[in-house]
C-alpha cells in the first residue's frame, strides 16, 4: 500500500469472491459445530460447562461492543440477559405442546427454540433502545447509573410477577439447547463484532470512544451510533439469556443479579476494553477458573467442603484479579488489540501502516 490512508480503507481484492465472503464463515462453522455436538453427546457435564462458557462469551463479546468499542460504561448486562431468558423461557413454555405440522419433532423443536430465542433477543434489544435513548444522549457515568438501575428493576419486576414464577423462578422450560446451537450464536456475535470493528460504523464508535466532542465535529451522529451499538449489544445479551434458559433446569431472579453483571464487566476489562478476542479469552478463563480451582483443591486432598466453597470465593478472587490487573496491566490482557496482533512475530501477519 503506497498511499497514505489506504491502511484502513477496505479493498475488494482477495481469493474469495465478495458475494461469498459474507456466508463463507457460516458454511465453515456448521460442520465444525456438528462434529463438536456429536463428540460431546456422551458427557452431560462437558456439555453443560461448554454451554456456560459459550453463553459467557456471547455476553462478554456483546458487552465489549458498548464498553470497549464505544467507550460507554454499561453495568446492567445481566438485566438484558434476564429479559431474554424470561421472554424466551415463557415463549418456549407456552409453545412446547405445539408442534409445527409436517416436520419431525426434533426439527420443529429447534425451529420453536430459534423463535423463542429471537423473541428474547428482540425484547432485550427493545429494552436496550428504551434505556439507551435517554441515557446515551448524556455523557459520562449516567449510562452506568441507568443500566445499574435497569438491571435491578428487571430483577425486582420478575420477582413479583406471577407469570415469571416470582422468586421461585421458571422451571420446566424444554431443554432445547445444544452445544452446537450455543456456539452458533457465539460465532454470530463474534462475526458481528468483528464486522462492526472493521466497518465505517466501527470507525464512528472508535471516534466516539476517543473523544465525543471531536467525533461530533467530524460529522459523527454520536447519539445515533451509541444507541445502535447499545441495541446490538442488548440483543445478543437477550440471546445469551434465552440460550441459558434452555439448558439450565431452572431460571430464577438470583441468576441475573448485579453480581452477574459485574462478572461480565470483569471479563471485558480483563480481556482488554475493545478487544473481541480478549473478551473471549477472558470469558473462557473466568468461567473455567472456579472449575479449575475445584479440581486443584480436590487434587490437593482438601476436604470436600473446601472444594464446594470455591463458588463462594469466586467474587473475592475476581476482585483480587482486577486489582492485580489494574496495577500490572491497566489496559487489560490485550488492550485494544486482537489475539493475532499480539501473537509472536514469526507468524505471518498482514502488513500494517504506511510504506
Amino acid at each position: 500500500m503506497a498511499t497514505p490512508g489506504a491502511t484502513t480503507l477496505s479493498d475488494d481484492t482477495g481469493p474469495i469472491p465478495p458475494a461469498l465472503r459474507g456466508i463463507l464463515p457460516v458454511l465453515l462453522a456448521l460442520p465444525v459445530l456438528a462434529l463438536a455436538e456429536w463428540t460431546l453427546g456422551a458427557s452431560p457435564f462437558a456439555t453443560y460447562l461448554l454451554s456456560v462458557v459459550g453463553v459467557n462469551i456471547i455476553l462478554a463479546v456483546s458487552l465489549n461492543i458498548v464498553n470497549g468499542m464505544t467507550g460507554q460504561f454499561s453495568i446492567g448486562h445481566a438485566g438484558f440477559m434476564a429479559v431474554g431468558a424470561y421472554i424466551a423461557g415463557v415463549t418456549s413454555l407456552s409453545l412446547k405442546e405445539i408442534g409445527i405440522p409436517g416436520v419431525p419433532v426434533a426439527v420443529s423443536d429447534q425451529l420453536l427454540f430459534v423463535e423463542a430465542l429471537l423473541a428474547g433477543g428482540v425484547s432485550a434489544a427493545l429494552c436496550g433502545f428504551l434505556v439507551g435513548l435517554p441515557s446515551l444522549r448524556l455523557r459520562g457515568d449516567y449510562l452506568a447509573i441507568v443500566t445499574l438501575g435497569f438491571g435491578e428493576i428487571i430483577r425486582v419486576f420478575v420477582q413479583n410477577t406471577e407469570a415469571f414464577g416470582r422468586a421461585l423462578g421458571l422451571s420446566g422450560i424444554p431443554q432445547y439447547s445444544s452445544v452446537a446451537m450455543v456456539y452458533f450464536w457465539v460465532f454470530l456475535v463474534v462475526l458481528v463484532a468483528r464486522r462492526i470493528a472493521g466497518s465505517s460504523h466501527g470507525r464512528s464508535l472508535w471516534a466516539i470512544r476517543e473523544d465525543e466532542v471531536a467525533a461530533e465535529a467530524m460529522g459523527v451522529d454520536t447519539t445515533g451510533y451509541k444507541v445502535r451499538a447499545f441495541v446490538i449489544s442488548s440483543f445478543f445479551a437477550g440471546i445469551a439469556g434465552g440460550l441459558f434458559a434452555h439448558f439450565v433446569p431452572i431460571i430464577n431472579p438470583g441468576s441475573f443479579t448485579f453480581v452477574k453483571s459485574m462478572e461480565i464487566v470483569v471479563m471485558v476489562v480483563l480481556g482488554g476494553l475493545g478487544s473481541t478476542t480478549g473478551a473471549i479469552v477472558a470469558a473462557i478463563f473466568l468461567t473455567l477458573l472456579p472449575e479449575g480451582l475445584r479440581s486443584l483443591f480436590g487434587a490437593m486432598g482438601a476436604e470436600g467442603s473446601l472444594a464446594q466453597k470455591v463458588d463462594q470465593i469466586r467474587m473475592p478472587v475476581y476482585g483480587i484479579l482486577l486489582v492485580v490487573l489494574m496495577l500490572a496491566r491497566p489496559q487489560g490482557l490485550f488492550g485494544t488489540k486482537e489475539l493475532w496482533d499480539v501473537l509472536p512475530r514469526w507468524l505471518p501477519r498482514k502488513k500494517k501502516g504506511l510504506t
Partner: protein
Amino acid sequence: MSEPVKVLGERRAFAPLLTVEGIQVRYGAIQALRGVSLQVGKGEMVALIGANGAGKTSTLRAVSGMLKASAGRITLEGKDTTSLKAHQLVPRGMAHAPEGRGIFPNLTVVENLELGAYLRKDTAQVLQDMEKGFTLFPVLKERRRQLAGTLSGGEQQMLAIARALLSKPQLLLLDEPSLGLAPQVTETIFRTLREVNATGVSVLLVEQNAHLALNAAHYGYVLETGEVVMAGPGKALLDSPEVRRAYLGE
C-alpha cells in the same frame, strides 16, 4: 435593551455565506448569549474577539450545532440551519476545530486525518487532499505515523486544522487556535490560515489574542457579556482606542 452596535468603517463586499441573527444561548439560569448577530461572507475571514466569558466559544458552538440556541436564526447559504446538529452541518460544509484542539490522542496523525474525511466517499480525492494538508503543514507529514497525543501543542493545533479541512468545508470554525502556543508557532498557524482562506475557505475565528486575530481577519466583531458591542474591518478595530485599551493593554 441592548445598546446599538458601534460600527467602524466600511465592510468589504463578500457574497453572504453565514448569517447569524440574534441568537441566544442559555446554560440553565445563566444567559450566555443575549442576541448575537454576525455575518461571514464567502471567502471572508472573520474574527470574534472578547474577554473570557464574553460568549465567544458559545457563539461558535451554537453556529456549529453543538449547542442549541434558545432564540434567533442561523442561515448557511440562505438555508435555515438553526435546529440542525453538528453531524448534519458537516455535510453542508461546516467544519469545527473545537477548543483544546479535540484531536484523537490515541490515533496516529494519518488516522486522525482519515476521520476528518469521515463523511466523504471519494477516497482518491481524500488522499490528494491529505497530501495538500501535508504541504500546508510539512511537520505533520514527518510525524504521520506518530500518535497524535505525542505531538507538541502547536503540531496538535496544525493537525486539528488539517483534519477540519479534510471535510472540504466552505466555512472553517476555529476556537482559540493560539491557545497555549509559543508566539512563533502561532504566527506559522496564522500564516497558514491566511493561505487556506486565500483558497476560498471562509473562516470564523474566535481568539483572545486580539492583535493577531484582527491583523489576519477581514472583519471583526467584539463580544462583551454575550452581546456584540463593536464591529468593523480588522484594521479599523485595531486602531480604535476602545479596543486598544480593552484588549491590547494600551
